């Protein structure tokens, strides 16, 4: 197998069969919960668009609701592409602008207070995001920095100390948790189940907020590598503009790639590294396939294992401390 290691190892044997298997599983699990359909948040990205299309096939479009939940920092494309995905899937949508809820929580204020402690000039009109150093460029610990963009175009980058890092993340987590609260509101109102949209990379590596986008009743694509989600997207007729949109977190006021925020590499290479870790493929073999050195791939492997250790908490259900 190692001789032919490359993107082909992830290719689905038959996309239509995979779709049938998933939609059958969705019907089975949702029926087991005695729910009648599914609710999901639409982000205009590939994962939620695919889950919307799968849900429409599983339950019929009339038994699925897509929620559009933009906020002040959302990309202008988010709403348009989310509507496009819903239309392609044939499901109705409801618009819930969550900015006022986030303001009431103090989401933006708490986040900006933390940014301003690190970048004292930070204030109204500034934009910011948090970024990680590349695993590829050096073996330094992956510690977050804030990148702040002044209204006059100046850019400032500073390492985030522990307290500020935690406050920024805690504040922005209001976004995912608010969206999930609304998903459950509509699910309860309609007697539907909440459909989660993580792919295998996100699910395995803990790229989600506990009790935020990590919460759901059913996770239909959590077993699929992101490359496989793209395969399904094509088979499901997801519009090309959505399929070609670069994955983004859409969480901060400055555009932020998933590599800056979480993953070591673009998704297609991350998929192969994750597969390699789980199937005992050596770093040197992967390196040849994805155009990196064996040392760089070894660092990615270590990052994968480190994220698994951290994500154990994110996956954990509440624990009872005394068993009877």
């Amino acid at each position, binding site marked *: 197998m190692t001789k032919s290691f490359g993107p082909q190892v992830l290719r689905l044997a038959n996309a239509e069969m995979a779709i049938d298997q998933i939609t059958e599983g969705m019907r089975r699990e949702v029926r087991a919960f005695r729910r009648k359909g599914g609710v999901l948040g639409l982000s205009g990205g590939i994962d939620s668009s695919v889950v919307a299309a799968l849900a429409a096939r599983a339950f019929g479009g009339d038994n699925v609701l897509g929620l559009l939940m933009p906020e002040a920092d959302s990309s202008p494309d988010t709403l348009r592409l989310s509507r496009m995905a819903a239309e392609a899937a044939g499901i109705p949508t409801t618009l819930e602008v969550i900015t006022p809820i986030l303001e009431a929580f103090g989401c933006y204020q708490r986040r900006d207070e933390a940014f301003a402690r690190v970048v004292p000039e930070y204030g109204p009109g500034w934009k910011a995001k948090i970024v990680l150093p590349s695993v590829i460029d*050096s*073996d*330094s*610990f*992956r*510690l977050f*920095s804030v990148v702040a963009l002044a209204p006059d175009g100046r850019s400032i980058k500073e*390492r985030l*100390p*522990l307290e500020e*890092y*935690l406050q920024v993340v805690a504040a922005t987590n209001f976004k995912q948790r608010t969206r999930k609260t609304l998903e459950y509101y509509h699910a309860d109102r309609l007697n539907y189940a909440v459909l989660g949209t993580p792919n295998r990379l996100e699910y395995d590596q803990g790229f989600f907020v506990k009790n935020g986008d990590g919460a759901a009743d059913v996770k239909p694509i959590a077993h699929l590598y992101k490359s496989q989600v793209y395969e399904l997207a094509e088979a499901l007729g997801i519009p090309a503009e959505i399929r070609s949109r670069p994955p983004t977190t859409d969480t901060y006021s400055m555009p932020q790639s998933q590599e800056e925020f979480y993953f070591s590499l673009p998704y297609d290479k991350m998929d192969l590294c994750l597969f390699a870790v789980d199937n005992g493929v050596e770093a040197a073999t992967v390196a040849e396939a994805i155009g990196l050195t064996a040392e760089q791939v070894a660092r990615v492997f270590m990052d994968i294992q*480190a994220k698994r*250790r*951290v994500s154990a908490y994110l996956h954990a259900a509440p624990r009872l401390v005394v068993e009877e």
Partner: protein
Amino acid sequence: MSVHTADTRTIDRAVRQFLADNFILDSGGADLGADESLTQAGVLDSMGVLELIMFIEQHFGVSVPDEDTLPKNLDSIARIVTYVASRLTRGGATSD
């Protein structure tokens, strides 16, 4: 409290105490090998590294610049001790 000398035994003791106090080591850190990787042993994750940096900066009064946040400086007790001692010797103190 600041340490202004490169007394490696004092640094070692302080680092072990910090690890024991903050990372729930049943042994109190006594059986952690000086050269054992703290990340591989599951003692430090990336948030733990941030805590360690904050500890070094506050306790020893030396700054840890971005370019020094490398495993070769911070991923074992021995490496931390050597790094802190060298920062103290080189005068990397942030303040008195």
